């Protein structure tokens, strides 16, 4: 007899009951799509195409990521690059690629599942097994997918509203596929996804006319290490050019570079002065931290707390820091070990890998930020040497900046030239200034010129000049 812990007698032994803990389709369609943006959706679908390219060509993603560090890049014939063609308008969404397609077996057994089973391993940009479905559900109520590899092909069509309503058993969590003929050549193997009946919120967003430009920029920076090297992306017919991270190197001295490994993840950090738009001019929108996971940028020009700004060891980002650029590269054969979020557009701040990296980012940034601050001295009469040195920085790729050993940002500063001039400021009566103007018969003589004139007059009269 169990002890009477609660102060009353139990009349019969406790029985075990089973509570339901089923997934609901409506959750995935309605709720799971709430926290992602239109841009997130498109990038997730581009990830899907890039993964097709990696699978069909038998390339390891880690190899693409590590190619960032090759000092001599192999020449690429851009004419034969696979193309990912994205079209988005209020009428609908389409992404079409010739990246190799999705294998029928994979479509049947894996692609449409929500999440991956335990022990699932792959080297791909698709990590969590959620991005493709979430993007399609977010965009509209009806989608079609056609895909052909060199071995097989399939087509599927899903009226999402109807599919959601039928949710009585696990058997309802399926999607019918129609087999299709394989592609006739590698160049034609690929996937086409169309979404119509776009959701009203998506249409409204598109109506604002402010989707295309940020999306173009997001693709340029997110896939800066893929575009025009492994794949070509077109957005509404326009080719998207890669936007490289604006890093530069000094002619003398060193940049901050750190490299270490942690739990199978190779981490490289570099911090330096940003490449200039024009001599002495830095683009504020491109300053900050860049975080790259397996070659894909998850944060670009970040100026927020997630990359350490305003936390111990790093100041809050201020406009004067627009000459700062820092990059963190996380590379692993196990993408689950990387500190990216499910949208792959931010960092998981609780990731132990990232926590271990954060303070090392602050250490790399500190001397760069200090150098930048010295460009703006409190004495307006001084012209710090740092300004000239910053102007002489040369554009350099991450591969050119990497050093065999860790280094800290350091640029030798020549001793300041002796100061020969000093600004003199004082207040005088306006009536006295007018007296001088009248006396000199120069009614428009400026106050500063009067100051110089009277100063000079004193030196001459006293025989000092």
């Amino acid at each position, binding site marked *: 007899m169990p002890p009477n812990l609660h102060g009353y007698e139990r009349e019969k032994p406790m029985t075990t009951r089973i509570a339901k803990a089923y997934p609901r389709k409506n959750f995935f369609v309605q709720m799971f799509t709430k926290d992602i943006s239109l841009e997130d959706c498109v990038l997730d679908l581009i990830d899907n195409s890039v993964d097709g390219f990696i699978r069909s060509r038998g390339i390891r993603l880690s190899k693409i990521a590590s190619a960032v560090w090759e000092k001599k890049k192999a020449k690429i014939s851009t004419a034969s690059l696979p193309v990912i063609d994205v079209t988005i308008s209020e009428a609908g969404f389409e992404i079409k690629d010739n990246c190799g397609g999705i294998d029928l077996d994979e479509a049947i057994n894996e692609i449409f599942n929500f999440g991956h089973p335990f022990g699932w391993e792959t080297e791909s940009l698709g990590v969590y097994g959620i991005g493709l479905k979430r993007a399609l559900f977010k965009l509209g109520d009806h989608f079609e997918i056609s895909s052909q590899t060199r071995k097989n092909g399939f087509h599927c069509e899903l009226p999402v509203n109807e599919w959601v309503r039928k949710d009585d058993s696990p058997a309802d969590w399926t999607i019918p596929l129609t087999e299709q003929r394989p592609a006739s050549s590698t160049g034609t193997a690929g996937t086409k996804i169309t979404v119509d009946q776009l959701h009203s919120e998506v249409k409204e967003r598109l109506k604002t006319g402010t989707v295309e430009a940020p999306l173009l920029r997001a693709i340029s920076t997110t896939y800066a290490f893929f575009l025009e090297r492994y794949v070509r992306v077109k957005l509404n017919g326009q080719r998207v050019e890669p936007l490289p991270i604006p890093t530069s190197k000094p002619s003398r001295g060193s940049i901050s570079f750190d490299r270490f490994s942690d739990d199978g993840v190779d981490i490289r950090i570099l911090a330096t002065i940003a490449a200039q738009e024009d001599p002495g001019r830095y683009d504020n929108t491109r300053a900050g931290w860049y975080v790259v996971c397996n070659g894909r940028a998850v944060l670009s020009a970040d100026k927020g707390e997630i990359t350490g700004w305003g936390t111990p060891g790093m100041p809050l980002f201020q406009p004067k820091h627009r000459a700062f650029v820092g990059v963190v590269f996380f590379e692993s054969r196990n993408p689950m070990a990387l500190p990216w979020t499910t949208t792959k557009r931010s960092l998981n701040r609780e990731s132990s890998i990232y926590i271990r990296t954060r303070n090392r980012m602050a250490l790399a940034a*500190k001397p760069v930020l200090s150098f930048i601050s010295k460009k703006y001295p409190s004495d307006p009469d001084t012209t710090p040497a740092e300004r000239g040195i910053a102007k002489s920085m040369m554009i350099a790729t991450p591969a050119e900046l990497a050093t065999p050993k860790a280094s800290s940002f350091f640029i030798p500063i020549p001793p300041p030239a002796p100061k020969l001039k000093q600004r003199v400021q004082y207040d005088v009566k306006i009536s006295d200034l007018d007296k001088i103007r009248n006396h000199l018969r120069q009614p428009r003589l400026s106050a500063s010129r009067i100051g110089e004139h009277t100063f000079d007059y004193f030196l001459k009269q006293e025989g000092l000049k």
Partner: protein
Amino acid sequence: MIAAEKSADKVPYEFRPAKQVERRMLLELFQRLMETGYRISGYQYTGMGSFYFVDFIMFHRYLGIKKMVSVECVQAIDKRVHFNRPYGSTVLDIVMGDIADFIPSLSPDRKHILWLDFNFIITKEAIDAIVLAAAKLSPESILLVTVDAEPPGPPNWGPKKWCQYFKSEAGDFLGNKSRNKHFARSNLVEVNASIIEKAIQNGLAGRDDVNFLPLVNFVYADGHSMLSVGGMIGTEEDRQNLRTLDHAKMPFMRDSITANPYPIKVPLLTRKERLHLDAAMPCRKSWRPDEFEMKPEDVEIYREIYPYFPVYTEGLL
């Protein structure tokens, strides 16, 4: 700039007896660490020597440290700092700039003694330096932090303003200290110590191989109330090694930097009195000099600090 209030002219460093006692105690600690197997003579000492370099001279002379860097942030005394450098640049390098900017360049291949000897009340910039130091220092390195523990601001400020000051400078590191009463004058040493401890922990976040192993926790006043804490960035093996240090021989050692600080008090004594007391040292607890009046607590203090107590004499040169 890290030391807005720092002034090398503020205090004649050579004649701060409590500070000198602290230096000598640290010297003894480092000598004992050498006996335990730590090759302190091979460490790099980085400090903020101003133009006095007292600690540099002691560590070079008595510990045999041959690589030292003094970081000085006041550009206006550049020439004076270089003029007073006691050793050549192969032994003692001088870097003009902020200590926080220098910390990232500390070699991970060396062991270090880093003394963040802030002669001012704790600031955001000082906390940044502590965080960066804890993040950077290699295992077996020693980190020392000194701050002015006087109340911040002008004399008419009270706990409410002090609370605002600490919230603005060290908000993330105040833990559950949020009310004015937590910042009463009598609590300020503990407030400072707790901020330093949390800053060190923050810097160590993600460094699973090491911990901060407290060694010293001093409070003293040569005019200003100062807090000076320190310990080793060490592994579990180091923790075991440090346990073998003889605490009885070094009663100033502490295993926490936030509790039970060792107060360095320096009794006021004439030279003749000191000679008399020294002749009786080490003495029994109950011993008192018969020849002159001396408070029992001062005798107690003297018993502990006499080996470290500096002697100053006037030299007519």
